[in-house]
């Protein structure tokens, strides 16, 4: 007696719960590895998984075991030259044939770290763990303007274009079976009687039965093949969906004072923000605006790698941003995020203009606007102006200061840390 079972279709992630528990237990280590990875990685491969290594001592499951020392006798195979009584100098370190072969893993010294691979999804999850997008709820409550049609079964009335042929035929068949059931039963009985009569040779009765059968069959054929009541139409209902698309405006100063290293840091910041937004919205669009004294919408390549020189007028970029919003991204349909990176330089008379523009035109339409200043120098006029904005719009505006690559992730974390709702 034996059974052969094909289990290949069974779930393969039987150990996911155990794996998750393991990850939860070593969250601290994993988080540290992820943060290190973010600051070290080249900016093009943020979304790869990451190798996490945990000191072996921390993951060990201790048991009672023998320590080194004492007297051990071990039997080994493959003797070539030894005879009994031979004395062999004790090999140092992991040489084979030495002491305690069987206990090698118990010796506690020189153990490797426990290393394992995070999948890219786990990596991103760790990266953005405990972070949230500010003001998500606002848009959901307010801007449910888009509507999706959803399939909601079938109905007896509708427009011809939505006719469901399969359902209609099914209804027709059901009706025909129901209406003809009695007649068909009668016909079957009559046919049986007819056969009997024919066997008995009762001509008269045969004739009578044949007429009766004809009558019943006429009745059957009178039932319509397709009736109005059979028609079935696909039914769709309107379902409002929260706006699930976002646009992210990347604003960057490309004046002479911004060198490649500063731009790289800005890029890392934008990339984190982009990945973060992508997690929350079905669709995320990017708009790149670079500016010196004039602003210009550009593609990604040009945004990050072309160099310009000249002075700096930040308000030009903000003006352009507002124009683009008016033209293409209605705040009713889009969640709009802005991120501005700069080394803090601005034409002095321009800074008040910037904060006025943000206060009156932009911030009311935006979900969030983040300004990061990448500089090792003293703050300048722009920072001071923006500081007052931060006080006025604590929920939609934030500014942070980045000195080096290592600051980027902590600053990012700070900007998007879950805030206790008052």
């Amino acid at each position, binding site marked *: *007696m*034996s*059974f*052969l*079972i*094909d*289990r*290949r279709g*069974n779930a*393969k*992630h*039987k*150990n996911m*719960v*155990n*794996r*998750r*528990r*393991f990850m*939860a237990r070593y969250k601290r280590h994993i988080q540290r590895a992820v943060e290190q990875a973010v600051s070290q990685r080249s900016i093009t491969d943020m979304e790869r998984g990451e190798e996490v290594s945990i000191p072996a001592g921390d993951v060990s*499951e*201790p*048991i*009672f*075991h*023998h*320590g080194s*020392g*004492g*007297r*051990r*006798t*071990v*039997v*080994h*195979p*493959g*003797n*070539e030259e*030894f*005879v*009994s*009584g*031979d*004395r*062999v*100098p*004790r090999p140092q370190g992991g040489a*084979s*044939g*030495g*002491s305690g*072969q*069987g206990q090698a893993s*118990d010796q*506690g010294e020189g153990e490797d770290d*426990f*290393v*394992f*691979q995070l999948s890219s999804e786990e990596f991103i999850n760790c990266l953005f763990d405990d972070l949230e997008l500010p003001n998500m709820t606002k848009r959901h409550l307010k801007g449910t303007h888009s509507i999706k049609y959803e399939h909601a079964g079938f109905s007896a009335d509708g427009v011809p274009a939505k006719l469901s042929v399969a359902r209609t035929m099914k209804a027709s068949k059901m009706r025909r079976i129901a209406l003809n059931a009695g007649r068909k039963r009668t016909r079957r009985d009559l046919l049986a009687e007819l056969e009997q009569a024919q066997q008995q040779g009762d001509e008269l009765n045969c004739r009578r039965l044949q007429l009766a059968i004809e009558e019943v069959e006429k009745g059957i054929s009178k039932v319509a093949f397709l009736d109005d009541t059979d028609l079935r139409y696909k039914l769709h209902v309107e379902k409002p969906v929260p706006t699930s698309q976002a646009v992210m405006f990347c604003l960057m100063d490309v004046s002479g004072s911004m060198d490649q290293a500063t731009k790289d840091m800005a890029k890392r910041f934008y990339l984190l923000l982009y990945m973060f937004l992508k997690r929350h919205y079905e669709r995320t669009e990017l708009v790149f605006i670079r500016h010196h004294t004039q602003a210009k919408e550009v593609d990604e390549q040009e945004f990050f790698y072309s160099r310009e020189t000249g002075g700096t007028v930040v308000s030009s970029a903000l003006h352009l941003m507002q124009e683009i919003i008016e033209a293409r991204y209605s705040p009713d349909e889009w969640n709009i995020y802005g991120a501005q990176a700069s080394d803090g330089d601005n034409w002095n008379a321009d800074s008040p203009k910037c904060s006025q523009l943000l206060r009156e035109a932009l911030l009311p339409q935006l979900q969030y606007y983040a300004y990061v200043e990448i500089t090792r120098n003293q703050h300048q006029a722009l920072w001071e102006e923006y500081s007052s904005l931060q006080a006025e719009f604590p929920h939609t505006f934030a500014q942070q200061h980045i000195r080096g690559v290592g600051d980027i992730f902590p600053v990012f974390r700070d900007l998007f840390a879950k805030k206790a709702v008052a």
Partner: protein
Amino acid sequence: MSAQAQSKRQPLSTSSEWTFELIETYEREIGFLAEEYGLDTYANQIEVIRSEQMLDAYASTGMPIGYHHWSYGKHFVEAEQNYQRGHMGLAYEIVINSDPCIAYLMEENTMTMQALVIAHACFGHNSFFKGNYMFRTWTDAGSIVDYLVFARQYIARCEEQHGVEAVEELLDSCHALMNYGVDRYRRPYPVSADEERQRQAEREEYIQRNLNDLWRTLPKAAEVDTATEQVFPAEPEENLLYFIEKNAPLLESWQREIVRIVRKMAQYFYPQRQTQVMNEGWASFWHYTLLSTLYDRGMVTDGFMMEFLASHTSVLTQLPFNHPAYNGINPYALGFAVYSDLRRMCEAPTDEDREWFPDIAGGNWHEVLHCAMRDFKDESFVLQFLSPKVMRDLKLFSVVDDDSDDALLVSAIHNDGGYREVRALLASQYNMGDKEPNIQVVKVDLNGDRSLTLHHNQFERRPMGASTDEVLKHVHRLWKFPVYLDSYWQGQVTESYQMPKAQEPAGSS
């Protein structure tokens, strides 16, 4: 067509692709042969799985179902990592000691490998599980899967009631003592799920009542008399988990039940740890014998046999001690060599065999082999059946490593003067008592601080290892009062541990 060719049967298969029909055919044909050879087996349940599922099975030591714990996640991650990097190939099969006997076959195997696995696991291991006295005594193959289901449900319920963290901590501590959760000498009750459920409530009440008696907090004044102080336990107890389950003062009843579950699992795995050489040797001997017989009868092709032998030899290779990849004695190779040699002694005995094994030489090999499977564990099996020929073939020699000596000593080799010593030493290598420190509960301070005292009796002067303090933390977590461990060598305490650690003497005079 000649008469000779006609008498040869058609091979069962000619392609390396397997199908379910072919697996059934092979299982049936190998089953007929096994019956001819007198193998007594449980019914087989063969399950075909994919490599990812094999990784899952690895992490749970092959059990089809288990409770959740982070350490299984760790083993899973480890296996997955090694597999993905190509450091480790997956086993071709996993077989579970249950009735029916569950064997997993991997989808990736060729037909030859599937046949090899069927012969090895479904008839070799299976008959070993059913026949060997260790398994018969310590495990109950019929109810293990039920018990696993019970354990998983019970622990899941505890997690709901008391929180995942509390249960996890408790399991950590129990796992640390798992090797000390077995009755080595007393026959335990077989594990049975139905009974467990029925008696669980009863047990809870009983334990609490008895505990209260033991830990009566108001001793009668007259009884506090050092001369007649009651010693508890009356006999030293080697089963630490059992002792804790029954006597730990502050555990709640659900915690005792979990200690018990871990103890039962330890008991279930105990025979496997004691019979590795025999079990693998027996299964290898039979896959070799069964498939060779199939070939002799013309039921498999030459190509099949070539593939089978290539895989057979790679598993059964014993590397010499000076090989860079040497990792101790290969249990497959040793077990296979001993069983094969027993058959040889019966069929073609030499003078040496007659001298060393007068009862076996020239006997009936079926009976001899079955006896050598039924009534032994690794230690006694090696001591009884390791022949001079096998020692010569494997070129075994023993090395003494004494820390009071500055060099290693080759104490015996595979020659007339050394056979007995090498054999005895190899056998003792499979003695659990020598592999793990011998630790027993000797005393509980009933009237004082409720401390628990453990004794370690050193074997060959070997001290306790580095993780002792860590394990004692776990013992302390379960016992919840001070725990002492004294390590003895020849009646003298050589080292003492205690948990919690002694505090700095503050303001002592």
